[in-house]
């Protein structure tokens, strides 16, 4: 944020922004009243914003507008939506809550199907295909690296994929007096999988760290700039 158009509202906004930044950051030193104040304001604003966006983007164009000025078919569609939405809205009130259950069931059904369809066509098939095509040379790694490098990389990825997948294997054998355990060789493969999972988690943690550090730096840069600006005034 480098641009400061200093009319009154902008100045007020910048001061507010700076103040909230410091207040939230003070949580590092411990919980405090101002921090509580800031997060409650934040939760309220975020919820209000989301509610208005929902109104503007869904309820208004999908229900209100068609009922007022739509064709007969549109009006029917919107009225049905209105009735069902009202039922769902009753979920907000404990006594009427039961009326909304069919609509919630509808949502759960559609959600379940979307989730299955997406997981099969979007993750499972493409990822399996990608694993198979690792051995399609030249391909996955471009033509720049020598073939043996490509092959060994492909093998590492393949071993990682398969062992991480096997790591999750749940089935176990019964053993007397002890917890059921997986077959020894599955456990061995699972340990290799665990190694890959640890590395993946490490990469992800570092990614999260870099991303959040960017936010930290941006906030502090903003604050520093604000202080400099303030003293120049």
């Amino acid at each position, binding site marked *: 944020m480098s641009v400061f158009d200093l009319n009154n509202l902008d100045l007020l906004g910048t001061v507010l922004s700076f103040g909230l930044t410091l207040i939230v950051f003070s949580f590092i030193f411990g*919980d405090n009243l101002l921090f*509580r104040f800031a*997060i409650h304001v*934040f*939760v309220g*604003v*975020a*919820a209000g*914003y*989301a*509610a208005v966006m929902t109104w503007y983007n869904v309820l208004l164009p999908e229900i209100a507008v068609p009922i007022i000025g739509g064709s007969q078919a549109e009006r029917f569609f919107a009225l049905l939506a209105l009735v069902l939405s009202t039922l769902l809205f009753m*979920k907000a009130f*404990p006594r009427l*809550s039961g009326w*909304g*259950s069919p609509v*919630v069931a509808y*949502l*759960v059904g559609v*959600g*379940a199907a979307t*989730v*299955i*369809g*997406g997981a*099969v066509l979007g993750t*499972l*098939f493409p990822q*399996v*295909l990608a*694993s*198979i*095509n*690792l*051995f399609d040379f030249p391909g996955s790694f471009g033509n720049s690296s020598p073939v043996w490098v490509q092959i060994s990389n492909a093998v590492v990825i*393949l071993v990682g994929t*398969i062992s991480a*997948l*096997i*790591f*999750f*294997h*749940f*089935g*176990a054998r*019964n053993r007397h007096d002890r*917890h*059921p*355990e*997986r077959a020894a060789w599955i456990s061995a493969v699972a340990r290799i999988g665990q190694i890959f*999972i640890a590395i*993946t*988690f490490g*990469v*992800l*943690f570092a*990614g*999260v760290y870099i*991303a*959040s550090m960017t936010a930290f730096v941006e906030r502090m840069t903003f604050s520093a700039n604000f202080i400099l600006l303030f003293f120049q005034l």
Partner: protein
Amino acid sequence: MNYVYLLNIVDNGILGLGFVLLFFFVMIISAIIVRRRDEPLLREISTYSKLKRSINLAVESGQRLHLSLGSGGINYMQGGSALAGLSLLKRLYRMAGLSDRPPVATSGDGTIGVLSRDSIRSVYDEVGVREEYEPTSGQVSGLTPGSYIAGTLPVILDQQVSTNILMGHFNSEIALLADASERRGSLTVAGSDNIAAQAVGYASTENLLVGEELYASGAYIQANTMHIASLHAQDFLRWAIVSVILVAGALKLAGVL
């Protein structure tokens, strides 16, 4: 279409439908087998053992449990993780619902909030004490992922929670909840479908449910037939996938495909 179908032999849709049907039948067969068996034969997941223990301890010592259902909605891929959390919620309420400090459930999504209240209410109904049902025990604490975390922090910090169970969809901010829990000396158990959150959870808590383990909560916490059956079905298809990858990969390397 640049979306090349599997091995270009069969239409993707038919193959997908075939896979789903296969999954269905394997689940049914596993359910029949599981029903006949005395005890579930599943590997031990130490996080679940710890979770069970801490729930029991909390119930006995009259401490509050907090179940955080995350900010993912039912219609998302993330819904699965919230569903796992919801079935646990019912269990918690059956055990501790009428204690002085009943468990509290927080969620960051309207639908999950509704479902959490339904779950709690149904337990009160079961016992015939509907009038004791407190609608605020299943609360929505923020409606966007960031504000959900912000709204959940006070619950962890204020309500004398002994165990925070974070089961649902979270972003990397899950570390803030785990940290607040640590500041209060409470136990944290975390599981999320979001793998970035898992990575952060791996560093922040000893009790992490990794990846697919989260979806096994029904089988491990409730020892529920269909849940156990679905784990066996997952195992079956896991090996099917491994075989397909290995065989087709080998054929590819040999230049057959």
